[in-house]
């Protein structure tokens, strides 16, 4: 394997940019209970350095083949587990995305969390998160990825439950961690299986082995250190699906997407960073990293999971009233899109969408947070009590918060897939890829691009609904009306918004707003072989133009429909709303309740889990303990019997037998009374037993 000589400068820079957030975390831990302000700014400046470095690396190292850094971490038996990092195009891209978004969120949070007593804890957790997320990005070892994978989950747990005094927040964090753990089991099993076969967990080594793979009929043959390792394609499908499990959990794919909407209990900047831009995208990134291991059947499953999630999320987003929930479901849907992209073989397309989505979804969340923050401030000033996230209580906000409105509008257009924005480029690329994939094999696969289109349509629809409800029409906030009082937030909030909005323009990705793909896709592309590549797949290129037109049309229809449906006379709108809440139809209920997945899981998984818990506790107290104690009990019983035999045998026997016959009664009574003679009788009895034994023998 040709390897770039380790560039000491690059790697030192990486070390610095990676460890600075950790430093921020450690200092945050130390200063956690101090009520001083400086920490936030300090963390932000640390992160600024990180971000600069990441851009610098992006620039300096652009187009350079991947390079590795590896030291021995620990050894068990003869197997060495190394601490290995990799730097390639995909890494650089993610480094930039993560650090930049994180920096923006940090800046934003300076304002947003200004008055929160736990803000030191908050920044510490953000530091931990950024560190671990960068860890995922940089790691070359599956084990390391898993470690950081769990760590991001943990920081997410802490941040969702940041306001731990709120029961719902505590519960949501619990749920998020648990659901993620379920997914991680798959990841872990996958790792273990890979280790069992290859005795290594290094992605680059695995890639090397796949490069040199020998396809012998039913089995794959690998060579490692002169040893021949054989494995069946089926095993690879199993491994791929297991690894997919991790991604399904982390990226909130069907059927594990239930945690993400609840995770909105965390502070909004956190939602932007973790639950929109970066952590949830880690699943996609991860699959992209181990894409070469996936077999066609596994990819087929990936595509369908993505498609299903995309539609389910989009449907659920339609009828939400909580502004963050809409965005959460939208995130699920978009993540589904990315997974779909991977499934149809569009590794680069998926990553491209990841990048664009990171920008516009983070921006959307931050913008929503901006509104919420302003409303909170307003509520605080006027002592009003209302739900600051309920869209039914908003409306007409564009008048009060023009910057936020502008940003929100741009980003909504981006996500809706309207040309001139990044979203169009990436979505279009995915849909194109999906169509070519489907047309190559045909059959049931056609469902995937259709669902993709459908979800694109829904996306446009619910985004325009959101914009209409929040920014247009009349204001329904209690005590606010059309008077002033609600004001735009400060610069620390608006500047990150504007940056992200700017980032969602087409120009950064492709000079041609209707163009195909992006240079980013070339950056992350790799020429290494994949397992699915072994199966000669016929790809049938469908002209990009056709697809682009279709997708633009679909998006526009969605936007238009949303605009028409929600831009009516205010009274009518309200009446309609009331009607909707009082008499919900089946579909809107289904959508509102996210397909009743929570209820389904409560009734099945959680219920059986609880039953099992009860059953095993019952078994422990009532079965195992007693059964194991049975020997003891038997012992005691015997002792009681012996004791009883010694003193009372006879009373009982007597009373029983006397009634039956005098004769037997006499015998029985014979053992009674006069202790000596009783003793003698017993001894004689046993002696006679022995004698009997002698006689029979």
């Amino acid at each position, binding site marked *: 394997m040709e390897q770039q000589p380790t560039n000491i400068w690059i790697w030192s820079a990486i070390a610095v940019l990676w460890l600075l957030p950790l430093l921020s975390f450690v200092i945050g831990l130390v200063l956690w209970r101090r009520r001083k302000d400086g920490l936030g700014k300090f963390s932000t400046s640390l992160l600024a350095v990180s971000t600069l470095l990441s851009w610098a690396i992006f620039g300096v190292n652009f187009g350079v083949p991947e390079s590795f850094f590896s030291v021995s971490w620990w050894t068990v038996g003869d197997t060495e587990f190394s601490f290995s990092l990799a730097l390639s195009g995909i890494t650089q891209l993610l480094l930039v995305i993560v650090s930049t978004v994180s920096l923006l969120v940090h800046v934003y949070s300076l304002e947003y969390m200004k008055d929160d007593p736990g803000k030191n804890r908050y920044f510490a957790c953000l530091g931990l998160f950024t560190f671990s997320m960068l860890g995922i990005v940089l790691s070359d070892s599956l084990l390391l990825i898993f470690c950081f994978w769990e760590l991001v989950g943990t920081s997410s747990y802490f941040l969702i439950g940041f306001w731990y005094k709120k029961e719902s927040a505590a519960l949501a964090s619990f749920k998020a961690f648990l659901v993620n753990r379920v997914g991680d089991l798959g990841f872990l099993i996958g790792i273990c299986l890979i280790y069992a076969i290859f005795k290594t967990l290094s992605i680059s080594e695995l890639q090397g082995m796949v490069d040199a793979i020998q396809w012998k009929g039913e089995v794959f043959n690998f060579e490692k250190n002169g040893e021949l390792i054989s494995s069946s394609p089926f095993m690879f499908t199993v491994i791929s699906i297991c690894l997919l499990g991790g991604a399904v959990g982390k990226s909130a794919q069907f059927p594990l997407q239930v945690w993400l909407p609840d995770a909105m209990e965390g502070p909004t900047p956190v939602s932007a960073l973790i639950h929109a831009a970066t952590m949830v995208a880690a699943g996609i990134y991860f699959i992209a990293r181990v894409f070469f291991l996936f077999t066609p059947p596994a990819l087929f499953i990936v595509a369908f999971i993505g498609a299903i999630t995309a539609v389910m999320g989009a449907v659920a987003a339609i009828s939400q009233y909580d502004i963050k929930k809409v965005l959460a479901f939208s995130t699920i849907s978009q993540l589904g899109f990315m997974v779909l992209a991977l499934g149809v073989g569009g590794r680069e397309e998926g990553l491209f969408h990841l990048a664009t989505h990171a920008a516009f979804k983070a921006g959307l969340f931050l913008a929503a947070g901006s509104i919420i923050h302003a409303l909170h401030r307003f509520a605080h000033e006027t002592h009003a009590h209302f739900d600051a996230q309920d869209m039914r209580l908003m409306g007409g906000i564009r008048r009060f918060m023009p910057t936020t409105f502008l940003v929100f509008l741009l980003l909504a257009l981006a996500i809706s897939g309207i040309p001139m924005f990044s979203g169009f480029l990436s979505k279009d690329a995915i849909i194109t890829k999906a169509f070519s994939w489907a047309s190559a094999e045909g059959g049931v696969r056609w469902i995937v691009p259709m669902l993709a289109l459908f979800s694109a349509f829904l996306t446009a629809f619910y985004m325009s609904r959101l914009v209409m409800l929040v920014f247009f029409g009349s204001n329904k906030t209690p005590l606010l009306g059309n008077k002033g009082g609600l004001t735009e937030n400060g610069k620390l909030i608006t500047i990150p918004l504007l940056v992200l909005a700017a980032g969602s323009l087409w120009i950064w990705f492709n000079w041609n707003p209707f163009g195909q793909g992006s240079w980013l896709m070339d950056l992350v592309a790799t020429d290494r072989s994949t397992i699915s590549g072994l199966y000669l797949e016929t790809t049938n290129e469908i002209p990009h133009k056709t697809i682009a037109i279709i997708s633009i049309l679909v998006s526009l229809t969605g936007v238009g429909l949303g605009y028409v449906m929600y831009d009516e006379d205010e009274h009518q709108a309200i009446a309609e709303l009331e009607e909707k809440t009082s008499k919900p139809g089946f579909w809107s209920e289904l959508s509102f309740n996210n397909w009743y997945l929570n209820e389904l899981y409560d009734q099945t998984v959680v219920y059986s889990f609880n039953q099992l818990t009860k059953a095993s506790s019952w078994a422990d107290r009532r079965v195992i303990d007693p059964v194991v104690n049975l020997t003891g009990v038997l012992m005691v019983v015997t002792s009681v019997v012996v*004791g009883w035999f*010694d*003193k009372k045998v006879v009373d009982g026997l007597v009373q029983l037998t006397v009634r039956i016959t005098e004769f037997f009664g006499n015998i029985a009574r*014979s053992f009674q*009374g*006069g*202790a*000596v*003679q009783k003793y*003698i*009788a017993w001894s*004689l009895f046993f002696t006679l037993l022995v004698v009997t034994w002698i006689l029979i023998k």
Partner: protein
Amino acid sequence: MGNSIYLLLSAFVFSAGVALVLTRQNVIAVLIGVELVFNAANINFVYFNALYPERLDGQFFTLVVITIAAAETALALAIILKLYRTYHTTNLDEISNLVEE
């Protein structure tokens, strides 16, 4: 011929002694039973000695048994007298304060 007489007799006396020991409530009657058991053994000893006349083991054994039986009886009676003073009975069934709790 003589063979069976002695053996049968001793067996009979032995069993009778056992029966006495088991059935009588009066402690002295029980003692009588014990004496019968001893006598049964003695009959055997003397009879068997006649079968093996080289040494007089059997006869001497009988002497010892007789002596010891006497000693034991004396001791027993001493205890019985004391017992009678404290319990006012010689009925063994009534002399049983030592029972397991």
